[in-house]
């Protein structure tokens, strides 16, 4: 069995000193004794809703807003776990062939869909071939080489690939991309238009009961769940609340038990944490770490010069960003792999200290001296509009670059306009981006550096950077079957990124959960908010 588990610990992702102090003082400390108690059955968990996605089908739309609701209803083949790395869910085991051309999954016995039909390998084959590969945002690239899924019996699914495919990549992708749909309800229908996309039906611990738009989602206990005794909760309600202030107030008054995805303002965290019965819980999101990056348009003559890019990196103080913009809830980056991803991370890369004087001398050396008005050249900076932190980082980067003589004009747009301007029209000099790390560089990270992306592919290399050596490195790692060799290639990749600085990785951040203390088993896996909550319970 080719199951290579890495030990991950809850603290791995929490490097910032403020964060550790906070964790020690509060959330994690408080949660520890509670876990020793015997879980109690019953109760309704009321959480603040995240977004209300139109399509709740996680096999089609692998996004956190979708998972937050549907991961309780529809299950993946495996889920992330702090102790084991990967915890079997609908698959109990998997093994890759020597040549890397097939992976055999053994499926769980005795699992039933919420309508009573048995779950079989045919459901997995259908989901993989008809949904993940052709329709899913992440699956399209991960399963691009998937040719067929054979089903020799009801509990075995054999994935056949046209090119050698590393088991490690598939394993790392399973939690996000492998939600299994009921074939008997989807086959023969227009999958994208199926009404079940708005009212999902799965094998999970909770049954989708009701969605009232603008009001709430209600999920009820699946009494026929395959795991004995689970789930503990009778129901989950996700209430739609108008804004961050209302969410914070609802937590204080006990109207809700939980907000996830940093739904309350960071500046409110200390205040909420001081309230009896409410805890701020960092952790539980290591599997969905975000980067804050400066995206660079290499089509600008100045920015194509590596010395200028190095100068930009030296001019930006990432500690300041961590302390002020993120109030300590972030970690300075050394590159495109976050330090919490112990499997792939290396700190053996060139680093660029905050050193404005060095930035100035690099700019002089590059041939861009300060002009009579103190300005070397001007750039247009587009901060991504979706997070307060991307906008605030834009404000800071503008100031930091002006400090070294680069005039910066901020340009803002709505999310659609921003994505079009940066990823289709390339109408930017610099942009502040927020790409997601999803457990393996090949899932959503290398696409930021591989040349040859057609215009219009968002969150990909639309930067005009196309380096043969970088491309070769990425391609070699994509088909390398040996785990150690693959990791070594990704170490080289991180070094190459740090040398070339095609884009600047500034800080890594994950989200924060704020929960009432009666809620137990919170943040106990690296994708907790987007996991099944089968073992979550309420102390009465």
């Amino acid at each position: 069995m080719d199951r290579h588990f890495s030990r991950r610990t809850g603290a791995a992702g929490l490097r910032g000193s403020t964060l550790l102090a906070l964790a020690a003082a509060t959330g994690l400390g408080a949660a520890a004794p509670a876990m020793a108690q015997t879980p109690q059955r019953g109760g309704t968990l009321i959480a603040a809703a995240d977004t209300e996605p139109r399509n709740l089908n996680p096999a089609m739309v692998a996004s956190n807003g979708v998972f937050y609701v549907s991961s309780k209803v529809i299950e993946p083949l495996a889920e992330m776990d702090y102790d084991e790395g990967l915890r079997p869910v609908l698959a109990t085991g998997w093994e890759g062939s020597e040549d890397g051309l097939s992976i055999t999954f053994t499926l769980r016995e005795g699992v039933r869909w919420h309508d009573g039909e048995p779950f079989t390998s045919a459901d997995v084959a259908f989901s993989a071939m008809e949904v993940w590969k052709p329709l899913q945002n992440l699956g399209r690239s991960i399963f691009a080489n998937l040719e067929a899924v054979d089903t020799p019996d009801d509990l075995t699914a054999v994935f056949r690939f046209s090119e050698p495919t590393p088991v490690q990549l598939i394993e790392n992708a399973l939690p996000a991309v492998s939600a299994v749909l009921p074939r008997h309800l989807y086959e023969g229908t227009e999958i994208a238009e199926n009404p079940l996309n708005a009212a999902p039906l799965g094998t999970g611990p909770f049954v989708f009961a009701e969605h009232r738009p603008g009001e709430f989602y209600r999920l009820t206990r699946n009494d026929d769940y395959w795991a004995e005794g689970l789930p503990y909760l009778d129901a989950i309600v996700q209430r739609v609340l108008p804004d961050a202030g209302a969410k914070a107030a609802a937590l204080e008054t006990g109207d809700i038990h939980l907000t996830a995805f940093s739904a309350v303002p960071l500046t409110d965290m200390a205040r909420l944490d001081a309230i009896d019965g409410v805890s701020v819980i960092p952790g539980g999101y290591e599997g969905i770490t975000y980067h804050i990056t400066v995206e660079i348009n290499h089509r600008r003559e100045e920015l194509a010069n590596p010395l200028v890019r190095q100068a930009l990196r030296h001019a930006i103080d990432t500690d300041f960003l961590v302390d002020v913009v993120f109030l300590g809830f972030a970690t300075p980056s050394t590159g495109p792999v976050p330090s919490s991803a112990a499997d792939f991370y290396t700190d053996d890369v060139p680093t660029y200290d905050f050193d404005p004087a060095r930035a100035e001398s690099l700019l002089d050396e590059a041939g861009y001296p300060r002009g009579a008005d103190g300005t070397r050249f001007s750039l247009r900076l587009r901060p991504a509009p979706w997070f307060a932190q991307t906008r605030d980082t834009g404000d800071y980067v503008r100031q930091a670059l002006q400090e070294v003589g680069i005039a910066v004009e901020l340009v803002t747009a709505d999310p659609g306009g921003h994505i079009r301007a940066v990823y289709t029209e390339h109408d930017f000099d610099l942009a502040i981006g927020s790409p997601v790390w999803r457990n393996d560089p090949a899932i959503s990270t290398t696409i930021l550096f591989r040349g040859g992306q057609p215009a219009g592919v968002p969150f990909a290399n639309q930067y005009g950077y196309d380096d043969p050596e970088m491309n070769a490195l990425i391609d070699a790692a994509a088909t390398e079957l040996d785990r150690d060799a693959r990791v070594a290639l990704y170490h080289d990749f991180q070094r190459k990124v740090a040398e070339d600085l095609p884009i600047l990785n500034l800080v890594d951040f994950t989200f924060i959960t704020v929960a009432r203390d009666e809620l137990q088993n919170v943040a106990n896996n690296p994708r907790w908010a987007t996991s099944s909550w089968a073992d979550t319970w309420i102390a009465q």
Partner: protein
Amino acid sequence: MTGLMRATGVVGAAILLALLALALAADQIAPGDPLRMVGRPLLAPFADARFPLGTDQLGRDIWAGLVHGARVSLTVGAVAAAAAICVGILVGTLAGFLGGLADDVLMRVTEAVQTIPTFLLALALVSVLGASAVNVVIAIALSSWPPTARLVRAEVLRVRTLDYVDAARVAGRAPLAIAFLEVLPGALQPVVALIGITVGEAILVESALAFLGLSDPNLQSWGAMIANGRATLRVAPWLVILPGIAIALAVLSVSLTGDSLAARLGARRRA
């Protein structure tokens, strides 16, 4: 004109002059870019002499933001209102003086624009044109000229039948010269009463656009400061309250000054 009216007019004018002085001297009072992160984040007002009104969550000086914001709000408000009033005067004079088909077409267009709420129209225009100070001025001007146009037209209809206009016509002056040199000056007095309202509304629309993130991100403005402070309302309410007071004072002072000016002109006309 009552004593109270005169007193409020004086108060309004005093506040307006103070705001204008702050706006004009912004670079001397609070030198440098008000968007710079200069101090410890979230300092309370009156806690640190260097930042008399405190700092926001990124350590930006609130006092500097308010002073430079006054410049943006008053400039955008005044320029947008001036542009709107000019458009309104042009449309109103032509419609009233020419009459007939031209009047019908111009007034139907005016009504069409007037049926769209000012703020929604400005919002749509800025969304399309892009967020910059010039575009905000254009959007406000294009969405707030109809009241002026209607008022001017009504006055022109009244004035153009007066004897001195007939006299000009008999004297053989060109129709457009009669419209703009003879009729218009006589019709302008009530427009003065509209100036206060139009400028006040322009300041409010500018602040609301900034609040929604549709202002020039390279300039500090009161609306943007309120939007920024909203997330920290519970821990740092002054981030919302101070620029809120600034907007209220600006609109109030413009409105009081405008009213008092109009009342004074009206009194002189009756006298």
